């Protein structure tokens, strides 16, 4: 079975949840014998090696074809990079940092961080983004025309038009994979154009995969999609192969409680600060770190000062792969107080690094893990109580740490991939059954 997959660049290039999840799932699929993946990603081509790049589509979009090998699998996958500036969910600050490295001057940065996107959608920038999406779909059409495959799999709304274009030209079934919806990203203030693209993708899809039941319910309730068409496949986490040693040592004796992620409305940073205030009222020897950047970062710096806890709250800005590892190694507790989190892979990474975590019930990941403390994001008293408990009562810290590590080590992408495969087979069978006898698809 051959899958044409419209995904996202893998870490470490852009380390967001979406790229990580695509990488994990593709790695998992590559371990399954009868599946071949042709993986297509948008990539802003910069000053790297241009020798393997060819041009494609109406606007002569640069395209390069590569082979990619996963460590656990003896198969390699075909990997097509399409010149494009589409980047998922990166804030302005992060984008600028990235742009210094990866993006040439020829390409205007297009970020779709929500607040900014809302702002930009009213101006010309806006059209740039939608032009970009459209152009990507034209290239997708060419790729679909020139390649053989049985099924199309598209990850999140920016690639839905590409998936639809590929479906229209090939007649193959389309599966869309929803890692987040605009309801999550916007804190409820949905952008109509984004919503329309999302909804069209969902309606055109033969089947929809969601990363949690939380997201599944949003798709059924808010987008009005038939429940039979939507299945949940949970994300997993790449096992840490070697013991990564922290390069940095903790410079203070104090315990460290960490928030790790984009500082945006979706992630609930203000609840973290409120819980910090409550804990600091009662105990010394603890510091709070907000690791990440985002459009609410300055507001949070200000808020910490207002709460008179600025001396105990530290802002690191955006962290890259190694720095994330270091941060986790220094942490005694990780808190993810997300207001609306379709899945949330950061807590799993923390658990891998032996860090006990507190997560909100409003996260998809809370549906899969048991050895974590769960609170409602708005219940800062309970959040503070959980932080205090983990820092002061050694047995619960030890228990959560040990059992959490074991639990997360058993969440394998291979299993998620198997569930995805089941959905492929179901969709293909349905398609086959609906065809007249002579035209049966032969599944390779």
């Amino acid at each position, binding site marked *: 079975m051959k899958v044409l997959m419209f995904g996202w660049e893998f870490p470490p290039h852009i380390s967001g949840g979406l790229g990580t999840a695509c990488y994990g799932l593709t790695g998992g699929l590559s371990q399954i014998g009868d599946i071949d993946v042709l993986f297509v990603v948008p990539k802003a081509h910069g000053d790297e090696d241009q020798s393997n790049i060819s041009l494609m589509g109406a606007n002569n979009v640069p395209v390069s074809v590569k082979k990619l090998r996963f460590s656990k699998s003896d198969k390699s996958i075909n990997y097509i990079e399409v010149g494009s500036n589409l980047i998922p969910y990166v804030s302005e600050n992060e984008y600028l940092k990235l742009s210094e490295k990866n993006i040439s001057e020829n390409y205007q940065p297009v970020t779709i961080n929500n607040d900014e996107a809302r702002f930009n959608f009213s101006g010309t920038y806006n059209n740039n983004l939608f032009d970009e999406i459209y152009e990507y779909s034209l290239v997708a059409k060419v790729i679909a025309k020139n390649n053989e495959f049985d099924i199309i799999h598209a990850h999140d709304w920016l690639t839905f038009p590409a998936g639809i274009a590929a479906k229209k030209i090939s007649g193959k079934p389309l599966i869309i994979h929803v890692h987040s919806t605009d309801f999550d990203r916007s804190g409820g203030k949905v952008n109509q154009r984004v919503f329309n693209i999302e909804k069209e993708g969902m309606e055109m899809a033969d089947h929809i995969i969601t990363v949690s039941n939380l997201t599944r319910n949003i798709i059924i309730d808010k987008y009005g999609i038939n429940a039979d068409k939507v299945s949940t496949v949970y994300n997993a986490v790449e096992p840490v192969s070697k013991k990564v040693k922290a390069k940095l040592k903790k410079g203070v004796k104090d315990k460290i409680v960490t928030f790790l992620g984009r500082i945006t409305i979706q992630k609930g940073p203000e609840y973290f600060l409120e819980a910090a205030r*409550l804990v600091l*009222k*009662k105990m010394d020897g603890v510091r709070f770190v907000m690791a990440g950047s985002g459009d609410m970062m300055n507001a949070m710096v200000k808020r910490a000062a207002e709460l008179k806890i600025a001396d105990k709250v530290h802002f690191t800005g955006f962290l890259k792969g190694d720095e994330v590892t270091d941060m986790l190694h220094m942490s005694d507790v990780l808190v993810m107080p997300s207001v609306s989190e379709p899945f949330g892979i950061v807590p799993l990474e923390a658990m891998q690094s032996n860090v006990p975590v507190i997560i909100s019930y409003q996260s998809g990941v809370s549906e899969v893990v*048991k*050895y974590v*403390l*769960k609170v409602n994001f708005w219940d800062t*008293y*309970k959040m*503070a*109580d*959980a932080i*205090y*408990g983990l820092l*002061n*009562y*050694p*047995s*619960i810290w*030890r*228990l*959560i740490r040990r*059992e959490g590590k074991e639990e997360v080590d058993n969440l394998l992408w291979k299993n998620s991939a198997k569930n995805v495969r089941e959905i492929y087979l179901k969709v293909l069978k349905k398609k086959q059954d609906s065809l007249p006898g002579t035209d049966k698809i032969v599944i390779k």
Partner: protein
Amino acid sequence: MKSICFCFEVHQPFRFRKYRFFDIGNDHYYYDDYTNENLMHNAAELSYIPANKVLLELIKKYKGTFKVSFSITGTAIEQFNLYAPEVLDSFRKLAKTGQVEFLSETYSHSLASVKDDELFAGQIKKHDELIKKYFDVSPVVFKNTDLIYNDKIGEIIADMGFKGMLTEGAKHIPGWKSPDFLYCNVRNPRLKILLRNVALSDDLSYRFSNKNWSKYPLTAEKFVDWMIADDKSEIINLFINYESLGKRQPASSGIFDFFKKLPEVSLNSGKLKFATPSEVIDEYQPMSSVHVPNTISWADEEKDLAAWLGNEMQEEAFNKLYALTKKMKMVKNKDMIRDWNYLQTSDHFYYMCTKVFSDGEIHDSFNPYESPYEAFINYMNVLNDFTLRLDTFVPESNAEKIKDLKK
């Protein structure tokens, strides 16, 4: 003639309110009065009152032949007093018939039996004084918290003068043949041991209303057939949680009708009669001694202590609590003693159990917490405040002095 020996466990814990860490040192009231009152009303309405009514009718109808026993904890009696005095009245009516035996327990349904002999004995005395006060009887048979038992506990109970004790008919007890005979403690044979018939007891308390159960529906006739199936056995010990009547098995399941019918069908069989634990002990000869070196209970599949002391949170809470034992002996303050007793109630430890994760087994009694972690943190916050208070009653230096004086 085979004896049916019923024992109904009646217990209510004083559940804690949400006690956040910022309450430590500021607020010394720990109890969720609203929840405790509501749950008591609910249990009274659905179970205690209708069940007591049925039993009283049966006792009058089958004068001298229908008998049951109760083990009612001190905390349950306190809550009857506070929230449902009519329940207490109905138990007193039962007591007056003379066909009901009241068993001994620990006052607060504690785990003291596995920690501290002296404390354990003290709680039993405190409980039995309460029973004497309300029901004008002195218990002679002991039933520990959730049937917790080992040889040593049996020995303590024997030394206290009890003639018998109830425990679980767990199959892994060495020397176990069948729960349907009388046994005795291996260290002190004067203490007789009654073993719960697990299958028949659980048929009533867990399976009765389960429509997927192959034996559903359970009728009095069917149940009597099972009880008399084995000709040789002598006793059928049916020890169940009293809330099974009306709450776990709702009235709509027909559980009360079943009980109304059971005495008639049993007595008409000509092979069954009803007896209290004391009567069983007086009438039968022990079959053999039971050897129980490792502690057993009626909890879950494992029948051990893991439901209360199976993970490190439970151990930390338990050890930190009982580390206060010495100091508490010097305290006369009534509020402190009350809180000390309520803190020991085993339910608090049960709420911290993480086994449900691995077993997929559902602990069916009401749990006020969303997770074992929340239960633990809440308990530790309360215990921290209690410890601070205790320090004001017994300052560290004083405690040392008292120790020195004793030497």
